[in-house]
């Protein structure tokens, strides 16, 4: 494993694509967090400012970060498709790796990227909670932090799915377009038109639902519903609740994506 880590480090951290996409991810996330913090809005118990305070900040920042998981998926696609584009997987097989090593190397890289995203959410949440809070840091501020762990699982799931698309198509453009089309209209069409009875268990739906709308939004949506102001957010709020069952299914999906990827790698000629 040590050799795979070194090999992945050499080829990935020197890649401009890696640096640019990760920088964009960082920038977009920080910009959204900062931009929304400037909005002064309060309705009853709800206020934008409270989203930036402990303990709401954990859920809110994980939810915001989840919007940019698609960028992490695209990064994984580019990193893998470049291996086919440069024929470097082929070269590494000739040099003495096997398909299992190739997959393990990429899993390592996915975990590294997911850890970066996790760290980003944790550090930004701590900074925000500390700045906006009035009380000194204590255990109570970390209540609800488990959602950040679920966010970590979510990034792993998105990137595993992206890896599968990369292995299937081998071409950057084709894999990215197919990945995005599957996430947005593709799965929605499948869910709503064909498999309506199991729509909650579709991968993109289930994985995106791991970081639901923050509790404050949900409460606000319910109160709006109670006074007759129904809108889509209110409906979404009722279904967007993570259960342990969904977390387990997400783990099963990750295992399935990785297994199919390995199966494709084993069958492939380089």
């Amino acid at each position, binding site marked *: 494993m040590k050799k795979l880590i070194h090999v992945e480090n050499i*080829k990935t951290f020197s890649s401009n694509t890696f640096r640019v996409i990760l920088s964009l991810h960082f920038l977009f996330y920080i910009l959204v967090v900062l931009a929304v913090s400037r909005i002064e809005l309060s309705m009853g118990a709800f206020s934008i400012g409270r989203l930036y305070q402990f303990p709401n900040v954990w859920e809110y920042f994980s939810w915001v970060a989840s919007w940019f998981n698609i960028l992490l998926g695209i990064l994984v696609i580019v990193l893998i498709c470049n291996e086919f584009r440069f024929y470097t997987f082929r070269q590494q097989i000739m040099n003495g790796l096997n398909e299992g090593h190739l997959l393990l190397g990429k899993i390592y890289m996915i975990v590294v990227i997911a850890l970066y995203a996790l760290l980003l959410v944790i550090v930004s949440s701590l900074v925000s909670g500390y700045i906006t809070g009035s009380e000194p840091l204590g255990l109570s501020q970390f209540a609800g932090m488990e959602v950040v762990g679920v966010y970590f699982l979510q990034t792993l799931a998105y990137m595993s799915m992206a890896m599968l698309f990369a292995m299937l198509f081998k071409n950057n453009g084709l894999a990215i377009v197919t990945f995005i089309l599957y996430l947005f209209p593709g799965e929605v069409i499948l869910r709503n038109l064909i498999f309506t009875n199991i729509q909650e268990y579709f991968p993109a739906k289930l994985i995106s639902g791991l970081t639901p709308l923050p509790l404050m939004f949900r409460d606000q949506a319910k109160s709006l519903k109670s006074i007759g102001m129904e809108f889509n957010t209110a409906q979404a709020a009722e279904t967007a609740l993570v259960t342990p069952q969904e977390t387990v299914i997400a783990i099963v999906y990750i295992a399935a994506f990785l297994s199919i990827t390995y199966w494709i790698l084993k069958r492939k000629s380089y």
Partner: protein
Amino acid sequence: MASESILEIRNLTKNYGRLRALNGLNLHVRQGEIYGLLGPNGSGKTTTLSIVMGILKETAGDCYWFDRKPGYQSRLRIGSLIEDPHFYPYLTLYDNLRIITWIKELPESQINYSLGMTGLLKRKYSRFRTLSSGLKQRLAIAAVLVGDPEVLVLDEPTKSLDPEGFSDLRDIIQKEAEKGKTIILSSHILDEVEKVCTHVGILKSGELVTEGKVEDILSGKEVVFISSEDTGNTARLLDRCPFIEKYEKQDSREYKLLLNKKGSPAELNKYFFDQGIVLSKLVKQKNTLESEFLQLMK
């Protein structure tokens, strides 16, 4: 005592859709051999080398490296270059070779040795994408040499090389051969193969048409050119002569003959003389791998 088996291929078959690229190929390379794999374009040389290096799946048949089923462990003992050089364009030459040292679990000090052998030491911090095609090929050869592997597999290694690179490569192959390395080489440059290889296998349409030591393939067979005033009887005798393996007409009077192992130019001359034909020309030419190859390809 028989030498250790390095590579054995048994009934290897590869289909690309309906096209059969390899048809039940059998081949055996032993330790210390410099084995030249020859054949025209599309004969299956690269397909064979790609399968044995694990980058192409065979349709049927088996191959064995070091008497075992091939796997990544066997590939760690082999340095290989198949088709074009493939490296990360954004990495320096040094970093590209570092990847190989990590894969093969070798010290990074090996890199400078390989770059030095191929004349790339001064460019070690250049990015791969900035190299000319000849220098890229040199880097591919440097990558093959990393870790002093037991076996070298080189598919068209002279591709894109300038005359200096060509000569350097010949020196490298000879030095590696002197160390007792086994080298499997495919090339179109038959003169070079004849100079460096101890054994050759000639492929045609995915089948091995001949295999053996270079000296055995070339010895015992001589090429002679003959002509006579009596063209009609000469042509008739060519079909009956027991010393001729093959012949072809060069012009209205002249024939090019490949003598078999029983024949010699003197015996040929006697045979025609005894039959009442005086040869006005009888010129012996040294048989080369190229002429043998061209004969086999007809």
